[in-house]
């Protein structure tokens, strides 16, 4: 069966902020309405809706049920939800569009982390028998990964600071960024450790925010928008959970997903990588074989805006935006799920020639 070409025809995100003054469904509503408007469609044109979020961020079971109010579910809609980043909701919607009976889908991802404390929360995401009792938060696992990378001799703390400095400079032109800066890497590297060898600038902020994308079959997209962005390929792979059982300095699941998504089919101009810690960008570049000619995280990336459960979906939006504004012809977007890059998704996007 020949795959159905799918295009991104509208997208939107709310600004990433430390604490949104509105509720998560309202964040979703803002993103969804803007994405639908940009796509030039009406809500009734949407054949399938899929969202990604996580109950634990809000601290209430069934938290996603309220977000349904942002999808306009009356009259009733065909709809699904993943307890994952919105990038995986996009994967499910892309799959649904392959079946050929619908031609437009809405995807959104959202997270309002501000009511919870990540240090207390995230140990509960780990193996409850062996790991959760250790109380490891994401930055602790990120630090183990960073230490392993330093010990491998393939990176230095100065390189971590360079990733952070470049990201913070790039974020100055991103109106949705949560943090920005114009420090030199050398100055950043003088800061105290938060979790050695990670400093504050090496660690993604935790943001509140939502993002939405409207997908359409390429055929339908042609009649709707001037420059649809095609999904050339999209794949994802999971790795085993125990950090001690894998080489944290490598990301074979990212490499396999990229190969499956068709990265080998030509060079990419831009890569938006879901690196939640500056060393992860180096690990991902390595797994993807990206050289210095590739513009990595021109938006500033997750180190400057991290709306958890939408951060991966935002990577797809930022990559698509570069194609839509003509600064890239082919772009890669990456999303991650779990700790220490356990689960990775890669999408290859192209402009319609």
């Amino acid at each position: 069966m020949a795959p159905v070409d799918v295009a991104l025809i509208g997208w939107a995100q709310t600004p990433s902020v430390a604490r949104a003054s509105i509720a998560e469904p309202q964040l979703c509503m803002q993103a969804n309405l803007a994405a639908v408007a940009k796509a030039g469609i009406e809500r009734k044109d949407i054949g399938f809706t899929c969202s990604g979020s996580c109950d634990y961020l809000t601290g209430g079971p069934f938290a996603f049920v309220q977000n349904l109010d942002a999808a306009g579910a009356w009259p009733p809609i065909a709809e699904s939800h993943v307890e994952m980043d919105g990038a995986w909701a996009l994967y499910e919607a892309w799959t649904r569009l392959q079946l050929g009976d619908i031609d437009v889908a809405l995807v959104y991802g959202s997270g309002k982390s501000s009511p919870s404390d990540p240090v207390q929360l995230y140990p509960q995401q780990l193996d409850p028998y062996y790991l959760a009792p250790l109380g490891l938060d994401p930055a602790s696992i990120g630090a183990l990964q960073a230490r392993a990378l330093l010990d491998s001799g393939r990176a230095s703390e100065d390189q971590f600071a360079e990733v952070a400095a470049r990201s913070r400079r790039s974020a100055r032109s991103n109106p949705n960024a949560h943090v920005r800066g114009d420090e030199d890497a050398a100055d950043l590297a003088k800061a105290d450790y938060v979790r050695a060898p990670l400093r504050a600038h090496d660690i993604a902020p935790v943001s509140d925010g939502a993002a939405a994308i409207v997908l359409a079959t390429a055929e339908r997209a042609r009649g709707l928008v001037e420059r649809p962005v095609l999904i050339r390929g999209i794949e994802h792979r999971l790795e085993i959970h125990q950090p001690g059982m894998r080489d944290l300095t490598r990301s074979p699941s990212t490499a396999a997903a990229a190969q499956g998504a068709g990265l080998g089919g030509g060079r990419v101009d831009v890569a938006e990588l879901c690196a939640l810690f500056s060393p992860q960008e180096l690990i991902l570049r390595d797994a993807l074989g990206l050289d210095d000619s590739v513009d990595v995280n021109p938006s500033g990336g997750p180190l400057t805006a991290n709306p958890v459960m939408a951060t991966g979906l935002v990577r797809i939006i930022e990559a698509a935006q570069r194609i839509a504004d003509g600064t890239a012809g082919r772009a890669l977007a990456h999303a991650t799920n779990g700790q220490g890059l356990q689960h990775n998704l890669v999408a290859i996007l192209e402009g319609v020639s």
Partner: protein
Amino acid sequence: MAEPAAIIGFGQTKHAKARADLSMPGLCREAATRALEDAGLDWKDIDAVVIGKAPDAFEGVMQPELFLADALGSAGKPMIRVHTAGSVGGSTVIVAAHLVEAGIHARVLAVAWEKQSEGNAQWGLAGGRSGGIGAGGAFAPFIRSYIERTNAPEYIGWQVAVKDRLNALKNPYAHLRLPDISLEKVKESPMLWDPIHFLESCPSSDGAAAVVIGNADEARKAPRPPAWIIASAVRSEPTQFPGRDAVRPQAGVDCAHDLYRQAGITNPAQEIDAAELYVPFSWYEPMWLEGHDIAGPGEGWKMVDRGDTELTGSFPVNPSGGVLSSNPIGASGMLRLAEAANQVRGQAGEHQVEGARIALGQAYGGNAQYFSMAIFSSTLP
């Protein structure tokens, strides 16, 4: 266009109040191993894994599928975690089916589970607050409204409660085994949420279900008959708003009609040979018979009263014993679809409906607002 897909393997755990003999991975693995054995496949044959469960707060592990990667052989493969409230087990089957129907994968393992003994489901259902009304408290007003709307006699709910528990005696995996159940016992059991008695309510179970979904090639190679997925649909509507009919939710009506259209069914009561409906409280059997237009308005309870929905009746409902006999919440929806599939595969054992060729599986969730449904056939049209 979509490729045909079929359930080619089904496995489930023995459901119980507490499976203290198993860890969470062990519980999922018991079901998944049985599904693989049924399909004649090994872990390495699986292309992708789809996992479903209800709120993570039930066990106190955030996104537990991440740590289940090792036990479910999903490392190195794509994995998707679905969560659509009580309908999630049905949605999980449908998400997995789409991966095969889209031609992306040939063999997908779908696993749905809940280990409710790890936590407190009542607290979880109350949104993480104490003093919640629970699912029964949420649904009792809808049930009361159905009774007033249709003038159904009080004993209809007791009849469903007895029928499903007698069916469960023919299902070796069922949690509840109540051989001496009777109308009198149901009637005399404590009133929990008027009009729902204790024995008209589902239990709280540890359990898992798993299915292997294959494409047409796999279905033809499989050692046992496949259950072709000839229709599947999901629908959702908002939790509540003025004018919403919570007794006969429009999402349930639309979902069923989409399903019948796909399957080419015009008279569901006659053309469907067996149904597994999500009935956590006895009255939901007549309510879904009407809510999915299997029976006309006010006719659902008469089907129950006539014995039509018994194992040997004209429209058997929940031959497995249903949610009233086993309720590992995240898995309950998958059990409905997979038990329906097993009927058309002729693999239902003692609770087999004689000659079943077309079967309906249904799951619902949230405030009776999420629906996931599928129709299975012994043959591919």
